[in-house]
């Protein structure tokens, strides 16, 4: 049963996109696509053939595959609802962050393989923003490690999540809020959501993640979409596990975390409906701000 969080992630992750899209539709006064639309999309793409640019090499085909493989292994490290992850060891949080990095590296080189200026542009923005998001993510994780289990390297993500209790919230709630905020900004950036990137735009010039995968089609694109859903789920689960206190009763915890996952999807949809995308030059400021929040959280913790 250690595999429960992994199985839930594999099955439910596309649903998160469905919920986000439904929320956005409701904000706009529309009915919106069905909640299960992302599954239909994946199914349809898996049935299709593919078109490849003559410029591309095996890198272009390997990009989606290795990205998805890295994200799948990262999914094995993420606990949920009091259930430990399929693989859990001290410092797994670092491995988690770097596996996502591997996925990004391959997505970026696959984009450059097309020789298109648009995809180069997206790739260039992606590597810059993620380089700035990385310190915020790692410092945020360091802060959680410190408040939950005293920061010893004997800690794993599973242990950290199980240590978040109402008592801890009462003791260092401010720190938790700061870290959650910092991680939420990382969550929006890494998943190419507004205010950093707009997943729905159709103008190549302004896109980041979507423009990098412009040339992929068929099963390759299905792998990319599924990998992106999985990443959305995993970073969401990281924040939910940090915010939702655990009671020790697994049914309650699991339900609470699932509700948390729905909540974070709705919040993301709400943010996307209420905010405009930031100008590209403003994005670094937001990301540096996220890093500063994480540092602030740690400094507050030293004071205690």
């Amino acid at each position: 049963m250690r595999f429960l969080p992994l199985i839930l992630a594999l099955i439910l992750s596309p649903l998160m996109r469905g919920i986000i899209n439904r929320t956005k539709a409701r904000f706009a006064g529309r009915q919106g696509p069905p909640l299960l639309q992302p599954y239909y999309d994946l199914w349809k793409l898996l049935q299709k053939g593919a078109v490849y640019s003559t410029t591309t090499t095996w890198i272009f085909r390997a990009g989606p595959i290795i990205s998805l493989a890295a994200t799948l292994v990262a999914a094995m490290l993420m606990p949920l609802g009091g259930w430990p992850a399929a693989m859990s060891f001290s410092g797994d949080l670092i491995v988690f962050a770097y596996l996502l990095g591997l996925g990004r590296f391959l997505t970026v080189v696959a984009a450059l393989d097309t020789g298109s200026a648009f995809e180069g542009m997206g790739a260039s923005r992606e590597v810059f923003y993620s380089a700035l998001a990385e310190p915020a993510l790692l410092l945020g994780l360091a802060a959680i490690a410190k408040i939950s289990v005293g920061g010893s390297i004997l800690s794993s993500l599973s242990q950290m999540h199980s240590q978040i209790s109402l008592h801890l919230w009462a003791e260092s709630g401010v720190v938790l809020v700061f870290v959650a905020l910092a991680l939420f900004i990382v969550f929006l950036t890494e998943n190419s959501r507004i205010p950093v990137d707009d997943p729905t735009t159709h103008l190549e010039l302004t896109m980041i993640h979507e423009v990098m995968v412009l040339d992929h089609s068929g099963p390759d694109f299905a792998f990319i979409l599924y990998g992106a859903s999985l990443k959305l789920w995993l970073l969401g689960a990281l924040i939910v596990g940090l915010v939702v206190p655990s009671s020790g009763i697994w049914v309650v915890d699991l339900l609470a975390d699932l509700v948390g996952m729905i909540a974070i999807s709705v919040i993301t949809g709400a943010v996307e409906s209420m905010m405009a995308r930031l100008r590209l030059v403003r994005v670094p400021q937001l990301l540096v701000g996220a890093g500063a929040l994480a540092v602030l959280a740690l400094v507050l913790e030293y004071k205690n």
Partner: protein
Amino acid sequence: MDLLLDGLIVLVGGGVVALLLSRTPLANLVGAISAAIGSAIVLVPAVHVVLQGVTPAEFSAAWNVPYGSFTLLLDPLSAWFVIPIAGLSSIAAVYGFSYMAHFAGHKSLGTPWFFYNLLVASMVVVVTARNGVLFLVAWECMALTSYFLVVFEDEKDSVREAGRVYLIASHLGTAFLLVFFVLLGREAGSLEFSRIADWLDSSDGFSPGMSSLLFLLALIGFGTKAGFMPLHVWLPEAHPAAPSHVSAVMSGVMIKTGIYGIVRTLTVLGTSQEWWGWLLIGVGVTSGIGGIVFSLAQHDLKRLLAYCSVENVGIIALGLGVGVLGIHGDAPAAAMLGFSGALLHVLNHAVFKGLLFLGAGAVIHETGTGTLDAQGGLLKRMPWTGATFLVGAVAISGLPPLNGFISEFLMYLGAFEEDSLLTTSGAVTALAAIGSLALIGGLAAACFTKAFGIVFLGEPRTDASRDAHAPGWGMRIPMVLLAGCCFGIALQARPIAQRLTPIISAFLPEATLKEPKVLDAAFVSLHSISVACVMVIVLGIALAVARKALLHRREIGSSTTWGCGYAAPTARMQYTSSSFAQPVTQFFAPVLRTIRRFSPPQGPFPKSANLHSETPDISMKFLFRPMYRLVDRLLSMLGWIQHGQVHLYVLYLAATMVVLLVWYLGVAV
């Protein structure tokens, strides 16, 4: 020990024979074979010592130099450094044979192989010497031989200039080391390392002020060789100028002798002080972030790699800093993790930087230029070089499933541990280490997606890159070997890291384990990481098979790249290396001070437009050039002494002798 000496003899002997055969075609063969075999022989005892953890008896021979003795000892720490030195030198020599064949006929090949062999031998002596004088002689020999290798293509002005910068910067560093050894010898009464250790045991050791002074001298002297910012000026000049297999050895292992010097200094000085840890982390942060940001701003592949070496020695310094902090914060496990990470990164960097320089050499060999924006689409023309370069690029970005991640992971663990255990000052420093490691990792990924993407992917930007051919197996096999090592180290992470524990606890007794539980947990983690790496590879293969099955018997079209409906794209429309790096260089503009010359298109039918940008080295511009100019001005005041009249020079000599004689007699009386 005997094998080590045998290897040294093969190296030196082979070098001399190559020199004697200089103008014949045999020189290349003899030089390369003796370098490869000599290094391989040296490798054997080093691997043996690291695996067994026992130190063979030292070799000592009399030497009629004051305070000097020819004492060599291959303890585990020395052996750990000999492994990358000998291993990479051997592999690079095989590559060098094919690479140098290109110059046969119009250049003497005996001379460069003579210097190459001497360089390898002197690096081995540097890390095994147990006498201060011998160390300095080997150090100087290393600097000079590598200088002659850098200026191999001395018909080019830029190469001679690069050589001069290297020679001067290198000797500035040596000057600090000279003072270091003189002070050390005066305090301890001997330049034999073993005697210094005895003296430390029997006396109170160095006073805190003296040991700090010695540490600072060592940090500057060795830091110049290692390439810490702002002392790194010679790296971006010398590495691009040298032949590629030499760049690989210089960047992969020669700069590590600087790291060895710092680690050995920590052991020779006995006790360290907490602020040394802060300083090392400060140096690490500066070199790490500075190095990678400058690397991103480069237009030349080898210059980019050279700056990236600055970044990597920065990472190593971070690890050493975490280690020193751990000792003083009573967090021995964290200290072990910091030092292990740093030492493992020494090996890892040798592997992937060697690989990347060999790949860059193959590119330059085929296209005739290292300029990034003159390349493109080389993966189709040089599939092996491209694939191995990609492995090196992922590894140097510190990403799993390759070796770069393993050493960074150990440093992260150490810093996380300190962050929780240490007092505020130490914890904040550890925090700086975590934040900068993360930022460096992200920027390195940006830098190497750029390097790989612009050179190997897309469409060829010039005719030279369109007509490139794959290099022969003589150049391919070394690259494949090194790429295999990148995987191998990651998959054998735990056994390799466990070998480091006795090495570190032998030279830093304070770090001896009080809580082995923590370290055991770290080893278990390393094992899990290796498992995760295997899973990434297996899942990748499984998904590739699945994709193939899905596409079976379906329509697979091929077309041009999507260009918003524009159907006739040209190679010039691709993103260039500078445009790819622009968001980062823009963000770091206050540090980079990139010079831009821009003549925009004018009028409705513009005839021409031009954008030129270059990023001169900030430390060269604001630290070294002003210093050189000052020295130049002071010395030119003495210019009147030098007038070219020999008989007056003889008079100077005579006058000096008389003054010395009077002084000597006066003292004697």
